[in-house]
């Protein structure tokens, strides 16, 4: 366990130059730290719990199927509701990793049974039911894992609703823009959300992860479905792709401005050059909004030092770059020359930035 003295010191450092009216409940803070410390887990325990949950869910469902218990719908509804209620009750009452994992299993199984048991032919009804279950759970309990699950389910139920009821990909592109704006808001207004001390600040971490994942996954969905169908003749996905690209470009320019401002006056004389380069890069990748989306994620998450988002952004960037070059309609020879040229462009930018730095140091 961490040293109590160290913790107190840390709290004091953090509250050093505060307002005169500042009050802190040191005991509560210490208790939170102690609870965290007691439940500190490593990767082994996390993976073990997830594997255990997967095996037990699978064997449970296997048993249900093979014993033909899934035939009676009323059974399913009753069992499902019981599972859901037990899960929510346990998560609300206890706060340890083991109970959390076990409850989430029973939550997933229960929710699935309930939806399967109500047995409606309308996909819309199923999705709305899913929305209702997740929204009400989110209102009742807020805990890291279960809230993450709830928020992801809510976002994807909404996207599925849109995709089921319209043929046009542009609505999903709009939804994606909304998600990106929400992610930016959550990251930029961290202080505001934390200072509210309400439901938003409790689910803050889950919200951040869910938005990061769903933004990039939805972009990937749009990009992939465009390239899968773009040779068919009733293809209407291009407009969605370009809308997304333009929206992302605007966001990137805004972020670049924000970053330049951080450097005070040192970058001001070069800012026009930087904007032109950024617009050139964005213009050349307009057919693949995934690249600009991943760049946004990288810049945004580095700005606010959000490590998980940063790694997701880097992986996404590699994937979309591969996809971009793979789908270019050129021969392999032209592609290889393009690759080398773009590499030289990046190295040239690096050289320019660093030669300026060396000159400055000489002066």
């Amino acid at each position: 366990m961490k040293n109590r003295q160290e913790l107190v010191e840390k709290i004091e450092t953090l509250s050093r130059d505060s307002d005169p009216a500042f009050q802190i409940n040191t005991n509560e803070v210490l208790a939170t730290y102690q609870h965290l410390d007691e439940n500190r887990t490593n990767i082994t325990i996390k993976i073990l719990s997830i594997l255990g949950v997967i095996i037990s869910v699978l064997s449970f469902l296997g048993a249900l199927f093979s014993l033909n218990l899934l035939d009676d719908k009323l059974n399913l509804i009753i069992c499902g509701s019981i599972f859901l209620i037990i899960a929510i009750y346990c998560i609300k009452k206890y706060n340890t990793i083991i109970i959390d994992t076990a409850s989430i299993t029973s939550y997933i199984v229960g929710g699935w049974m309930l939806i399967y048991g109500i047995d409606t032919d309308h996909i819309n009804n199923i999705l709305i039911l899913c929305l209702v279950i997740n929204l009400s759970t989110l209102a009742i309990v807020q805990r890291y894992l279960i809230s993450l699950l709830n928020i992801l389910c809510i976002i994807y139920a909404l996207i599925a609703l849109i995709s089921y009821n319209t043929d046009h990909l542009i609505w999903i592109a709009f939804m994606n823009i909304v998600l990106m704006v929400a992610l930016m808001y959550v990251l930029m207004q961290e202080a505001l959300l934390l200072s509210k001390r309400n439901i938003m600040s409790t689910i803050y971490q889950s919200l951040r992860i869910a938005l990061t994942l769903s933004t990039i996954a939805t972009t990937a969905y749009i990009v992939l479905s465009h390239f899968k169908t773009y040779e068919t003749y009733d293809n209407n996905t291009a407009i969605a792709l370009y809308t997304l690209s333009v929206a992302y470009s605007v966001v990137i320019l805004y972020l670049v401005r924000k970053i330049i401002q951080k450097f005070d006056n040192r970058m001001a004389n070069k800012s026009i050059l930087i904007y032109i380069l950024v617009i050139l890069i964005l213009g050349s990748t307009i057919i693949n909004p995934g690249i600009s989306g991943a760049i946004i994620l990288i810049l945004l998450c580095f700005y606010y030092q959000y490590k998980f988002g940063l790694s997701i952004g880097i992986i996404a960037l590699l994937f979309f770059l591969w996809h971009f070059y793979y789908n270019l309609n050129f021969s392999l020879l032209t592609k290889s020359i393009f690759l080398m040229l773009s590499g030289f462009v990046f190295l040239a930018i690096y050289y320019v930035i660093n030669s300026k730095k060396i000159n400055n140091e000489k002066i």
Partner: protein
Amino acid sequence: MEKIDRDDIAITSKHNNRSRKQIEYLLEQYVYAKPKDWKKFLDLFLLVLGIGFVVSGVIFFFAFNWAELNKFVKIGVILLLLIICITCSFQLKIKEIYKKMLITAAAMLVGVLFAVFGQIYQTGANEYDFFLAWTIFITIWVITTHFYPLWLIYMVLINTTIILFNDQVQNNLNSIALYTLLFFLNGIACTALLALTKYYKTDIPLWFRNTLVLTVTSIATVGISLSIFDSKLQQGLLLIIGTLAFYAYCIKYAQRNKSTFFIGTIGFSLLIIVNSILIHIFKEDFILFFISIFVIITVTALIKFLLNLQRKWTNEK
């Protein structure tokens, strides 16, 4: 004092009336990226992207023209790369780790060279010949360099050679015997490594140690489950005894070195074996119900045990 991070600010902000401005100030000061970080980040980002693009461009360039290239050029290009890697690692005055990385790259190129050679001259050799030659010809490098990623590649090569040899040349071994052979090969390597590090008091990288243990336990688990399902316990006897000895040694090692990973892996492996026995004995559908409850209870108990161990060990430090 420890560094202050985002969580500290979030936790301490929960139980007080710290204003929004104050939180913003703290986050700016302790968490968000500063101009200095941005400079480092941009340098790295541009450099990696630039070099990555140029290298992949060169690779694609050769890939495109590969069919038209003369066989001398084909082998020549790879040999040239091989020689460059080796000379650089001997001649350049760079850090030890970069030299080792160059030798690892050279070891990979040996494989590429054999593959190209086989493709040009249509040697008609089995796949196992290829892997065997690759394994033999990098052995000296592996031993002298003593670089763990290279050791891992070497282990993978040996295992692949054995599996392919059994597949393509000698079909005498059934799957249980093959698992036994692989188990003993990797298990002895793993035990020797653990014992040697204790003897010489050196450190092995955790990722290497854990990968090796995970491989050995997976082979043992699959092998034993297989012999249970095929009702060939007599054939699997050697494997079972070996596994028991290995697990006992690992648990002892884990206690000494405070590794929860070892205990977690072994516990999970035993759990799977017990489940296989249950399924094999009862052969009824209802057993799945029992298993799902059994798994939840055992995993919960295992996690609880690991948490307790971890707490005990951190307190001892």
